């Protein structure tokens, strides 16, 4: 399969990429690793007139700590993230989820910025991103702005990313040191995409009560979501089989279940609760 014709230009800086977007009359599309965009172009689901390649921009690379957040450059590949010592130590759920994306060839090319900016409903990263209260650093016409990942994705491949702008980095809040975390997914075996993916970050205080809990869910519908109802139900409780089981029943409250060839909405709702319960038990029991 061969994409429709397009012009190609390589940007050397973010400013230049934005300028090229402005000049492209809506025909421009940013490409980083190309592992979400190029497959769509090959299927001719999308036919951008101009590809602006940002993959060589040095300022978009690297992982660093800033205050209580880890800043991951937009061009960081899934493999770099999965194997990065800072990520493995301080946000292991993120490194773990990154290590479960596609396969090694895909993780060598796909980038975190591309993954989130693309807004694919079956991407893995939105789950840990929601659980770690991720924020996107965005540079555009009007300068820099910060957007929460929660609410950024509006629908399949539709996001709040303003026109003529580039995601430059994604930051993740480092959870309290007494918390543990996991990313658990039930995936479609041919594609590797999650039918449901649940990220949990949670911890208990010295008296044995849950004092921190974040749950991010992806794959089940058109939009990944934070399972706030589950979090509210668990906060202040003692973690037991029963409290976890009844909280997990609320896992579908904050999202909408999708239905497709692989799984009906009813099936997804069930498996969403089952995987939420399993992930919570892994972390809390």
């Amino acid at each position: 399969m061969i994409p429709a014709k397009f012009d190609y230009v390589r940007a050397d800086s973010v400013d230049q990429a934005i300028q090229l977007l402005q000049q492209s009359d809506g025909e421009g599309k940013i490409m980083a690793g190309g592992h979400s965009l190029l497959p769509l172009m090959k299927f001719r689901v999308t036919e951008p007139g101009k590809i602006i390649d940002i993959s060589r921009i040095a300022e978009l690379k690297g992982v660093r700590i800033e205050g209580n957040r880890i800043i991951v450059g937009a061009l960081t590949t899934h493999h770099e993230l999965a194997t990065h010592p800072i990520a493995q130590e301080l946000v292991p759920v993120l490194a773990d989820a990154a290590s479960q994306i596609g396969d090694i060839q895909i993780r060598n090319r796909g980038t975190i910025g591309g993954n989130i900016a693309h807004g694919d409903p079956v991407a893995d990263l939105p789950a840990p991103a929601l659980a770690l209260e991720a924020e996107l650093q965005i540079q555009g016409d009007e300068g820099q702005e910060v957007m929460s990942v929660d609410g950024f994705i509006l629908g399949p491949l539709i996001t709040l990313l303003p026109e003529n702008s580039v995601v430059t980095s994604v930051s993740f809040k480092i959870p309290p040191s007494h918390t543990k975390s996991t990313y658990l997914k039930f995936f479609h075996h041919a594609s590797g995409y999650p039918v449901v993916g649940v990220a949990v970050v949670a911890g208990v205080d010295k008296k044995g009560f849950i004092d921190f809990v974040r749950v991010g869910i992806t794959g089940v519908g058109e939009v990944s979501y934070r399972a706030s109802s589950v979090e509210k139900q668990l906060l202040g409780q003692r973690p037991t089989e029963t409290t976890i089981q009844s909280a997990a029943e609320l896992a579908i409250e904050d999202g909408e279940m999708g239905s497709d060839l692989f799984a009906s909405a009813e099936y997804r709702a069930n498996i969403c609760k089952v995987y939420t319960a399993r992930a919570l038990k892994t972390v809390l029991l």
Partner: protein
Amino acid sequence: MGIQDVSVGVIVNGKERCAEVEPRTLLVHYLRDGLGLKGTHIGCDTSQCGACTVMLDEAAVKSCTMLAVQADGTEITTVEGLGTIKNLHPIQQGFWEEHGLQCGYCTPGVMVAMVALLKENPNPTDEEIRIGLEGVICRCTGYQFIVNAVKHAAKLMAEQNIEIEEVLS
């Protein structure tokens, strides 16, 4: 306004190659049709099967899901760059001796993926090999003979390294 061709300069199997290509040219098409290196196969064409796997600056990638121009400035190794008939690469030796293939369609991609694995992990366990094979699909062997072939290759490579160390000392 017509589409401008773009220039691509790459080192493929140690040899410098330069060309003007259409921006939409996929890397796998450039390798096969532009350079005549037909060893890299096209299987699913949707970045699932891994038949098109090549090494790009020592990392395994799927060349059906890359534009040729994205590879500009990199070093690429295809199956043709691994060894020669007279002097097989240990991975090729391993696949031969352990019968790591039947129809052979996936084999170039699998071998290149496994060379990338062995560069990162020269002595992988069975499980690590199987995890490393996640990005390639073989519909003949059931994978067991591939795992054997990779282990055989790892052993040959370790022996070769010992020989080199002995010569150096």
